């Protein structure tokens, strides 16, 4: 602390003269207002996409109908509403998977329900529950098919060639014994709501089956994602809707955790040494020796930098190994 010098003289010379004080209100432009295409409310009404929400309720429009109103600005057909209802059921619960576990871990600290359920939503990333990435993948290749005049079968084969099998979202070995994905797709077809996205994911599965050595088929991500998009939901809307749907169940997992008891105290949890595989234990050097031992991280040449980041990659949790993977991925692309 004592060695830190006053470095203000290094600031630009005019820095001292810069003005203090907040910026006055900008009267040259329209004042800030919340801009929304989704809804507004006044003292007496709440209106979503032009429909009074209380009137929707009293006219018999329920949860799934309102989801279409909010996300797509339209009243769904009965078949579309039935299909979304079916999907929400299938998205609700998945046993002790990431969202439930996150919710339970938050519950262990005796936090409130909404924090635990909200945390569960964060489990939806770019592999688990990757509905946005999945939808974008379909859209990108469908757009290419249109531009290049390819059939769904042809573009599916291209997709399977370009993306490693284990990285293709929506097809995997996860549901080979579970009839649920096939049932979702069949129900969409029976209700007459299946479209190009369901056709495409089926083609992707076929193409993947041809080149893969192991059995593979449409999984829950693929079935739910493709059906949601055939129902007109964007990749982002699908991501949000499915993540929120799971949060209801995450709330139940929170409640169960609270009811079964066993809250954790700060510092209570131990980590067995057997789980540790980091640097070996060593004595903490006397503080006076720190500058003799410590080496600055700064690299002055590219060779030094290369050597340093190679060394840094050996330490899990530093972020350098993750960077190396990202750089490799970028190269592949």
């Amino acid at each position, binding site marked *: 602390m004592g060695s830190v010098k006053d470095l203000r003289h290094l600031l630009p010379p005019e820095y001292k003269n810069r003005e203090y004080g907040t910026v006055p209100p900008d009267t040259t432009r329209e004042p800030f207002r919340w801009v929304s295409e989704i809804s507004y409310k006044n003292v007496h009404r709440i209106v979503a996409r032009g429909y009074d929400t209380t009137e929707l309720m009293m006219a018999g429009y329920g949860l799934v109908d*309102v989801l279409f109103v909010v996300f797509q600005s339209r009243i769904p057909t009965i078949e579309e509403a039935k299909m979304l209802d079916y999907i929400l059921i299938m998205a609700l619960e998945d046993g002790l998977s990431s969202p439930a576990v996150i919710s339970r871990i938050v519950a262990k600290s005796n936090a409130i329900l909404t924090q635990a359920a909200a945390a569960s939503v964060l489990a939806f990333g770019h592999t688990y529950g990757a509905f946005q990435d999945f939808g974008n993948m379909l859209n990108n290749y469908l757009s290419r098919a249109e531009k290049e005049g390819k059939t769904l079968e042809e573009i599916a084969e291209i997709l399977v060639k370009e993306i490693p099998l284990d990285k293709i979202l929506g097809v995997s070995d996860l549901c080979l014994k579970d009839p649920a994905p096939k049932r979702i797709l069949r129900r969409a077809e029976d209700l007459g709501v299946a479209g190009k996205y369901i056709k495409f994911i089926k083609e992707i599965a076929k193409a993947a089956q041809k080149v893969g050595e192991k059995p593979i088929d449409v999984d829950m991500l693929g079935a739910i994602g493709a059906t949601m998009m055939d129902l007109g939901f964007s990749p982002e809307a699908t991501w949000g809707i499915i993540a929120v749907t799971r949060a209801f169940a995450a709330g139940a997992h929170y409640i169960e955790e609270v009811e079964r008891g066993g809250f954790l105290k700060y510092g209570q949890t131990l980590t067995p040494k057997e789980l540790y595989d980091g640097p070996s234990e060593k004595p903490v050097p006397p503080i006076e020796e720190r500058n003799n031992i410590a080496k600055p991280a700064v690299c002055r040449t590219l060779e030094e930098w290369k050597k340093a980041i190679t060394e840094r990659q050996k330490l899990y949790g530093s972020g350098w190994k993750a960077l190396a993977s990202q750089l490799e991925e970028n190269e592949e692309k």
Partner: protein
Amino acid sequence: MTERMPLIQTKTSISYKTEEKTVIRGYDLSELAEKGYTFCDVLFILFQGRIPTEVESRALSLEMGAFLEHSMSPSAAAAIAVATGRPDLPAAIAAGISTFGAVHGPGANHGLMLNTYLKRALEEGKSIDEIAKILVDEYLSSGRRIPGFGQPQHIDGDPRAEPLHILHEALGLAGVYYELQRAIEKYFKEKREKEGKKPVPVNVVGSGNTLLSDLGFSPLAAWCLGSICRGYSCAAHAIHHYKKGHAWAASRREPMVQMLDLSMIKYVGPADREVPSPEERQEYAKKQKEEGEYKKWVL
């Protein structure tokens, strides 16, 4: 095969999942969907372990449909604010849901209050009407707010609240919770009028939670249904900002002043002052602590 070990080892009475199926409270989830049960049916199964009547399920769907969207409330504002930094969508949704606390949204407090006083009625041999009067007197004499009344934006009455009560009764679902809630409203109104004050109307928590209670949901389950349901709306508002708003929300090129424009900051803290040099630091800090002026700013 892909590694599929459980993430944690714990007992659960909610569900299990094998390679073949997911089973929730004893029912195969896929079979429920195949046989025509609705999402709201399965929410009853999730929280209550039972299949509801058609009317119960319909009531839940309508209540959630009405609660889902509420334009600019803390939840939507939080989701939008988070979206301005362009993290992944789930972060914005989580922020929106996290705003449901002691004041915003259907906290478990309302349900806890109803259940507490129903229990007292039973134990003290009082009628529901009598216990409602006691509840109102006790809350008001101790200076506590009765949960389920008033809404800062809908000052003349929450547009969802009374219609929800009407729906509750029209669907033949009015039970002890409805009776107690209505009696509380009656005595609260009387009390306010006696004091020459304007009545505070019931809000969507007061009427919605009452319906959910008569549908068999616990206060915690009801809170979960309401706050998570609003998560859908948070997702929509966040996506709207991702797709049609400006990241950072501070652009000076927009014809309207943006949410985070510099001019939106009104500072009411300590006056501008010199940063002490490292040499002066210790003396300066001691003096500052002794003088104690800083205490009025401590959070």
